């Protein structure tokens, strides 16, 4: 299953190296990682998406990350109400004949054309990963020349839905 971890870290040299090192040392399977400054000075926010086998593994990842001295806080936000976004830039082939068709696809996805040249367009799209996947699938037949994705960045929504936290635990 996919888990999203959101963490705040001290903005010190080598901190990203420490985190990726930990992932490879502990054999965690990472899908994406995005890093940027957070609201506080000297603090960065890192969002990473990791494939785990079980909840126990997810808990272990949280604990191992927490142990890092440069990491201030780690939260597994997979089960919370979150806002998660990703940005992708796609350079797609376009001839005068296909240009209108492409525009017709771009519009419902609320993507934007940010560069036009003789034989290609650069499209910028933001949204959840699934939306971007779907858009890429649609665009593929036209011929994608280049593609760059940022990976998911996320944090919890301001208001959390009251969720049914009652889970059944077994002692055995």
């Amino acid at each position: 299953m996919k888990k999203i971890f959101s963490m705040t870290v001290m903005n010190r040299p080598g901190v990203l190296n420490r985190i990726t090192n930990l992932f490879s040392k502990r054999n965690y399977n990472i899908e994406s990682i995005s890093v940027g400054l957070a609201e506080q000075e000297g603090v960065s926010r890192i969002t990473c998406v990791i494939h785990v086998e079980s909840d126990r593994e997810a808990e272990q990842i949280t604990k191992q990350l927490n142990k890092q001295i440069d990491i201030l806080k780690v939260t597994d936000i997979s089960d919370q109400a979150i806002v998660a976004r990703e940005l992708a830039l796609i350079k797609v082939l376009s001839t005068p004949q296909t240009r209108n068709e492409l525009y017709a696809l771009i519009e419902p996805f609320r993507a934007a054309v940010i560069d036009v040249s003789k034989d290609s367009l650069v499209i910028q799209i933001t949204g959840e990963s699934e939306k971007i996947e779907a858009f890429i699938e649609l665009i593929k037949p036209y011929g994608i020349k280049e593609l760059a994705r940022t990976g998911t960045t996320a944090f919890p929504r301001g208001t959390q839905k009251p969720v049914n936290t009652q889970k059944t635990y077994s002692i055995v």
Partner: protein
Amino acid sequence: MLQQAALTESKAKAKTATGADLLLKALEKEKVEVIFGYPGGAVLPIYDKLYDSKIFHVLPRHEQGGIHAAEGYARISGKPGVVIATSGPGATNIVTGLTDAMMDSLPLVVFTGQVSTNVIGTDAFQEADVLGITTPITKYNYQVRNIEDIPRIVKEAFYIASSGRPGPVLIDIPKDIAASVSIPPEEQEIKLPGYQPTVYPNYLQIKKLSEAVSRAKKPVILAGAGVLLAKASKELKEYAEQQQLPVIHTLLGLGGFPADHKLFVGMAGMHGCYASNMGLSECDLLINIGARFDDRLTGNLQFFAPHATVAHIDIDPAEIGKNVPTSIPVVADAKEALKELVKQKGKPPVHTEWLEQIRKWQEEYPYYYGESATLKPQKVMEMLYEKTAGDAIVVTDVGQHQMWAAQYYQFKHADRWVTSGGLGTMGFGLPASIGAQLADPDRCVIAVLGDGGFQMSTQELTVIKELNLPIKVAIFNNRSLGMVRQWQEIFYDKRYAHSKIPIQPSFVKLAEAYGLKGYEINTAEEAEVILADVLNNRDPVLLDIRIDPNENVYPMIAPGKGLHEMVGAKP
């Protein structure tokens, strides 16, 4: 006017300090008594200042020896061991020691030189990416980028190394920063918002544990090195006696609970005793205090403590539930948690049958060894124990002799046992014994080594001579890499691939070459006489104890098997 200006200038000059000055001052502030260091180009500015320093400096003959000595020092003294190595090869030579200290939670503060900041990244002479190399094998590491940061970084390093779950901290110092001059900065506080170890236990968890103990029919304590690191032996004894709980030790935990106590069961794990392993397999409540459920202890996890409710006291939350699902987690320092547990005065469990059962196992299946014409290593170990009244510091290398020492030397006190447990580093024993002796100069230190491991750090004999340390180097010589040979015998059809090393130097002559006394021991009678003699004086000595080369360590749990599937528990 001019005079005034000259005066302020000279005043400023008197106040300035180089990076190396600041470093040594910071070390003095941390009350560092001994440094294990090896000079080199990038640390010359630091060594120049060390020349005038009061701090005692030990020069190992290889950086790896230096860091292992610091580990031995840290294990016995409880204080961080301090190491200095130069850049490049100096730094890469301490990688094994850092990993070893990380695995066994030993506090170290390690300084490495680095090439000057203006050439970092240019593959300069003796440059290595020390931060990159050591990130996964240190608790934390620093590279100094501003001279003003030195006092704060050193302070933080000592704090990180010795608090929470101890571990090695490395500080990489570029040569130009050590040499550059600055006005000493004002005292800076430690700034570590992301590092706040939990020392005091949660009251509700303690209560829950205390109640579980009262209800238990077959409780056991599994005590690991966490008890020693927290200096909690007294509290452990008090609690075990109050609740009448049998105590099982891990390899690294030995000495945390007196081996001559009636509640002491023994060491558990791959070569642990029958009663301990059966105790873990049959118990209904397992209280782990400061052990990390290492695979050499648990055997196959599928069969580990199948009937037990598991409680785990550990200062490192990431250890709880890592290998064994835990129902009662207690994140705390072992000493504080045990104090709270004693205070609870819970109703002791009703479990006389269980204690009786454990006693029966102990009587029925003690460690044993056969008698033969050849010298049995276990016999020698028993002699060492008797002749030192169980009060010596025993430092071992890794392999068969390590297991025999753990089995046959009965540790009655804490901090008498130094061994490389987690990483299993050959070559650890001899240098570690130097550190142990420096930490406790008056006590008898025995370096129990194999002939393989001894040859990995032979060069450190010079240090024993140089400092005239009364270390008894006891080489259990079976002319082979015994543990490897044992596995090949059992699991690889007796195909002894490169595990026999019959061609050896004369260890006695080698000792003499280093200016030490050496004796060869071939029989139990010789052992009796020579041990009685050398353990009675304060001279360094090397003993080449020629033991039975075919002797194996038993009992044993084969890899992939459960604790209950011991072989060789009985003749």
